[in-house]
């Protein structure tokens, strides 16, 4: 009997694991968003502006769902191939830090926003999709937020966010281009490091 119970538990666990592994890109965003909003609503310290906790929330629950290496590559465009693998890694780390810092600053305003999902048009074999959502602030007009997502070995990862038609990655492309034109790949890296320390 005990063994049967064990097996049942084990199979339940496996089923849960399998369900998680097959989680669609829209389901992933839904889960993360509702989790984050629930935390925002429950945590009084975050509401009173505890930056460290906000940062930990973004770093712990959101950042893992993004492919920062790919985001950095896209933002660098043609310059990506000019960077050594070490530089590429370092750039991705700094870009991630910058985005997490910026995003956590904005996040505390979002607890009363309402997120709606548009129907996802996707074939089972697709590995690159755009999840379209609209976010409405209390008393405001809805704004479109789209997530470009790619299926990786470990599940779906976002590689761009498009807010009201403004692509985050594209918006950095010119800035990165200019920094590299003026002072090379190392110059961009130094600029990002300095920015993150400021």
């Amino acid at each position: 009997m005990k063994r049967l119970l064990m097996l049942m538990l084990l199979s339940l666990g496996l089923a849960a694991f399998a369900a998680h592994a097959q989680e669609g890109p829209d389901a992933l965003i839904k889960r993360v968003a509702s989790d984050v909003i629930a935390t925002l609503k429950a945590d009084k310290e975050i509401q009173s502006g505890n930056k460290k906790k906000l940062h930990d929330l973004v770093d712990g629950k959101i950042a893992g769902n993004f492919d920062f290496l790919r985001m950095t590559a896209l933002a660098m465009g043609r310059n990506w191939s000019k960077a050594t693998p070490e530089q590429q890694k370092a750039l991705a780390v700094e870009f991630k830090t910058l985005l997490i810092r910026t995003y956590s600053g904005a996040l505390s305003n979002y607890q009363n926003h309402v997120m709606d999902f548009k129907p996802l048009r996707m074939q089972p074999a697709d590995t690159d999709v755009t999840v379209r959502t609209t976010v409405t602030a209390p008393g405001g007009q809805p704004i479109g937020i789209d997530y470009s997502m790619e299926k990786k070995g470990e599940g779906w990862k976002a590689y761009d966010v498009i807010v009201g038609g403004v692509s985050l990655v594209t918006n950095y492309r010119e800035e990165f281009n200019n920094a590299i034109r003026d002072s090379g790949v190392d110059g961009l890296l130094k600029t990002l490091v300095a920015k993150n320390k400021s």
Partner: protein
Amino acid sequence: MHAAGAARAQVYDPLESVNRVIFNVNDALDRNVVRPIAQGYVDIVPRLVRTGVSNVFGNLGDAFSAINNLLQGKKDPFGSDLSRVLVNSTFGLGGIFDIATEAGLEKYGEDFGQTLGWWGVGNGPYLVLPLLGPSNVRDTGGLVAHALIDPVGEVRPPSAEYGVLGLRVLDARAGLLGTEDLLQGAALDKYTFVRSAYTQRRRSLVYDGKPPKDDDN
């Protein structure tokens, strides 16, 4: 490697040196004058009143949006925006209450710049306008067309007209309080960041949120 939906990053900006000067002046003016006043407005005036003010200007905006939908031959959006104006101007007591949104009438926010874009007019050079901020030659043309028929321009005496214009600026600016830290935090170079965001945003609006993937605009 190409991002899905990523537009060309380069913005045509032959007047960059002049634009940067105006951008910095606007920025200083905002920090020292406009933003503090907008903050005071939010602190002193109750939310209910501020929402009423926003709604009145929004109602006027809907009327312009209706005209521009008509100019672009967009029948259903035209009907929606026109209905919004009719509903809000009457049951919403002159636009103070936005009943139309609660009734589910969608707001389209079309303007003359978008209409020109819809008819194929390109952006032209990027411009930073004194006081008004980021624009381009096409959208500036749109603003001029708007100003020519804006009923606020008919308000008399002129002191009252400036009062209304001032309130409109305050209302718009108050809605953006809090975003300047975000911009400051996100941008390596604020000028470039704003230029790219403005250009992407306007392109998206011209194409009603569905811009083609590769476009030379």
